């Protein structure tokens, strides 16, 4: 691409009546005549419906007859009709970016119905601005990117395994890396699962079995991501498998690294023997080793406090599950659950709570204000309703602690160039609309890596991430918008390398290459233009929204007084 197109602009302007939507208010013919007087405009006409077959043919004919090289259509809105007109001019061999849309319906005639004169003047200005911009338009190429139909899943827990199986079932080559020496993640330490009471090891065995049988699915245990380069469809990664370096080319990456359990060291007398965590209780239950009758569980240990202000969302259910299990097995057991608020959302979970009460499990509320006192054999808890301290004796004290972000999340986030939130969990692209995407194309997230989730939710999210990933993997090639930022050759000497652009780019599309020069990876760039507006040397340009193009619109707008 050169800085300037060689030929002089020859602009054709087409004014759409849109039936009476536009033409009913303003004089489109007059507007078309006016358009013909604008600089560089060599042809103008008005059409009843420019978007109709007739209108489109008229455009094509005019391009041929008048040797037009820029086309301006003044009609409805580019948001709906731009692709149509672009395609139209492309059919006769013009680059589709040599088209400019002027919105004189949605943002003019429709909203100024009572001021026909004002609307006409506005339309006139808008056409003038549109033609001015059109004169500066440059042909652009769309960037196409080859896709490697290969998936990499980081994390061999239930979310990761779900995603891996899903993608593998769709026929994609899949690689699954797990940092521990076995698959399963948090599932390996669980006893049963709520609300169905399925044996956790059964589910795990099922998963592992499927995974091991799957073709084209490679598992790397004791492995870590070491290095990553590239962009959507073409990530080259290096995996460190217990010292062995494996290099892969993958198209997408799913982050399913899960979470870790908070160990309440120095809290409430935790000793791992008489005072244990829920997880340790599950191990005891798994081994059928429980032989005490007085059990007290304390909820929210180390959660919903200043340090970790969030609710870990799974602990209430875990406590209920284990309490019910014990109670069922040993009806004589005295189980007391000390809680702050009990979170049992949905029908099934609330039902479990009901069942627990029926089984005679005692629920005592405590508040954050009055601290619990754990003595050797009893817990003193201040109950607000009674207004006094209750003494609950115990043989076994079980502390429900929250899931926390993995320690190595920071390192991984830095490697992948994706963000973390304040608790170091991974941050998705959009909480509501893109819950399993990262802002970076081709990297997805699922499971507890993002937020504490239960097994059901983890599986769901695993599938969700896989589904999002397959929207990319299913293409051989994806086309990336041509309206990207770039550092023009003639501006390279302006660039001081200050890296301000790198920091403001939400897509990590700007890097310093091996020559220590700024490089904008076209495949990653979405064309928002923030880098250009920020660049301290005004060296970065945004294709199709260049400074020159926008300024020409401003000048055209400010030009002759049209009032």
């Amino acid at each position, binding site marked *: 691409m050169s800085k300037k197109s060689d030929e002089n602009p020859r602009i054709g302007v087409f004014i759409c009546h849109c039936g009476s939507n536009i033409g009913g208010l303003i004089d489109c013919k007059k507007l078309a005549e006016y358009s013909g007087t604008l600089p560089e405009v060599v042809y103008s006409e008005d059409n009843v419906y420019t978007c109709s077959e007739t209108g489109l043919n008229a455009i094509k004919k005019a391009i041929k007859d008048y040797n037009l090289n820029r086309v301006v259509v003044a009609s409805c*809105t580019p948001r709906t009709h731009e692709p149509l007109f672009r395609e139209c001019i492309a059919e006769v061999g013009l680059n589709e970016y040599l088209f400019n849309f002027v919105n004189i319906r949605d943002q003019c005639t429709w*909203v100024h119905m009572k001021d026909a004169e004002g609307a006409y003047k506005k339309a006139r200005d808008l056409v003038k601005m549109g033609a001015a911009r059109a004169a500066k338009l440059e042909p652009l190429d769309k960037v196409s990117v080859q896709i490697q139909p290969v998936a990499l899943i980081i994390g061999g827990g239930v979310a990761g395994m779900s995603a891996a199986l899903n993608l593998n079932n769709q026929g994609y080559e899949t690689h699954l890396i797990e940092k521990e020496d076995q698959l399963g993640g948090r599932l390996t330490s669980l006893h049963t699962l709520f609300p169905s009471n399925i044996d956790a090891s059964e589910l795990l065995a099922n998963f592992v079995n499927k995974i091991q049988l799957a073709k084209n699915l490679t598992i790397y245990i004791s492995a870590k991501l070491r290095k990553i380069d590239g962009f959507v469809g073409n990530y080259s990664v290096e995996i460190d498998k217990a010292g062995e370096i494996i290099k892969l080319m993958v198209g997408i990456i799913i982050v399913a690294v899960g979470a870790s359990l908070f160990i309440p060291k120095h809290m409430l007398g935790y000793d791992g023997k008489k005072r244990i965590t829920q997880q340790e209780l599950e191990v005891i239950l798994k081994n059928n080793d429980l032989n005490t009758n007085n059990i007290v569980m304390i909820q929210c240990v180390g959660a919903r406090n200043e340090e970790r202000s969030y609710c870990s969302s799974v602990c209430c259910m875990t406590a209920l599950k284990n309490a019910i299990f014990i109670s069922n097995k040993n009806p004589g057991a005295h189980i007391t659950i000390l809680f702050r608020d009990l979170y049992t959302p949905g029908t099934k979970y609330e039902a479990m709570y009901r069942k627990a009460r029926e089984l005679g499990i005692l629920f005592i509320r405590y508040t954050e204000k009055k601290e619990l006192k754990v003595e050797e054999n009893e817990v003193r808890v201040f109950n607000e309703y009674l207004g006094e301290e209750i003494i609950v004796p115990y043989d076994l004290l079980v502390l429900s602690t929250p899931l926390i972000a993995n320690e190595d999340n920071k390192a991984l986030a830095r490697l992948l160039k994706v963000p973390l939130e304040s608790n170091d969990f991974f941050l998705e692209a959009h909480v509501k609309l893109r819950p399993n995407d990262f802002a970076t194309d081709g990297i997805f997230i699922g499971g507890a890596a993002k937020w504490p989730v239960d097994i059901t939710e983890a599986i769901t999210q695993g599938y969700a991430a896989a589904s999002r990933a397959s929207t990319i993997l299913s293409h051989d090639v994806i086309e990336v918008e041509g309206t990207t930022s770039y550092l023009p050759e003639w501006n390279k000497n302006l660039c001081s390398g200050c890296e301000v652009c790198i920091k403001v780019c939400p897509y990590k599309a700007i890097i310093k290459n091996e020559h220590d020069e700024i490089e904008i990876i076209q495949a990653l760039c979405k064309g928002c233009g923030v880098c250009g507006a920020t660049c301290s040397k005004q060296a970065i340009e*945004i294709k199709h929204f260049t400074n020159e193009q926008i300024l020409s619109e401003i000048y055209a707008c400010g030009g002759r007084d049209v009032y």
Partner: protein
Amino acid sequence: MSFEPRILGFLCNWCSYAGADLAGVSRIQYPPNMRVIRVMCSGRVDPQFIFEALQQGLDGVYVMGCHIGDCHYLEGNHEAIKKFNMVIKFLSIVNLENRVRLDWVSASEGVRFSELVSEFIQDIKNIGPSPLRRDCPDKRLMEKLKAIERAAASDRIRALVGRERKITEQENVYGEKVSQEIYDELLNTAIHDEYIRSRILILLEKEPKSVKDIAAEIEIDPNKVLENILVLKGRAQVDMSEIVDITPIYVRT
């Protein structure tokens, strides 16, 4: 007769432009004073655009983007705020700050869009025509605005604004956060300095002048002029040409 303001709008493609379309589809009426330039993101609006628009004699400039958190490009509108704050700081120097406005309109807020636009048009009507209108632009003000545009385009200001979010909201290179107050103080100083320097340069581009002449023209203490001339001299932008009597005369290099 009340005047008809000429207003330029920069609308982001994904929210506010769609919102404006929605107003149309819903036939919500508002005065036709605003001309719209579509940009992909409010963060794309280079401060230069706003200064250029004002120099064109336009009576107002309206920048609209997605609501915070809704940005199609994640955080482009955050960047837009920072740039806009800088624009406001600059325009306050010449009391033009109320001629520009930044607002958020979502794709579903056709009504809000029309209300905001109507309100802005009314506000501008109340303020009156731009002193820079083409028929009789205020030349001194124009010169000041040119100086502002140049100052805002300086590396120093652009770099500071470009890094503002990083250092005040996330962490700087030392893993610390710089408080907004400290940052603002720094930016204000930089804005003030660069504005004065641009004014000096523009004055000197017209003709060689002495420190005292410059001080009288831009109405600041000659001592401050001298300080800034020394900085410009260090940047090889001005030079002393001769000494007339006891007064050195400076030129633009």
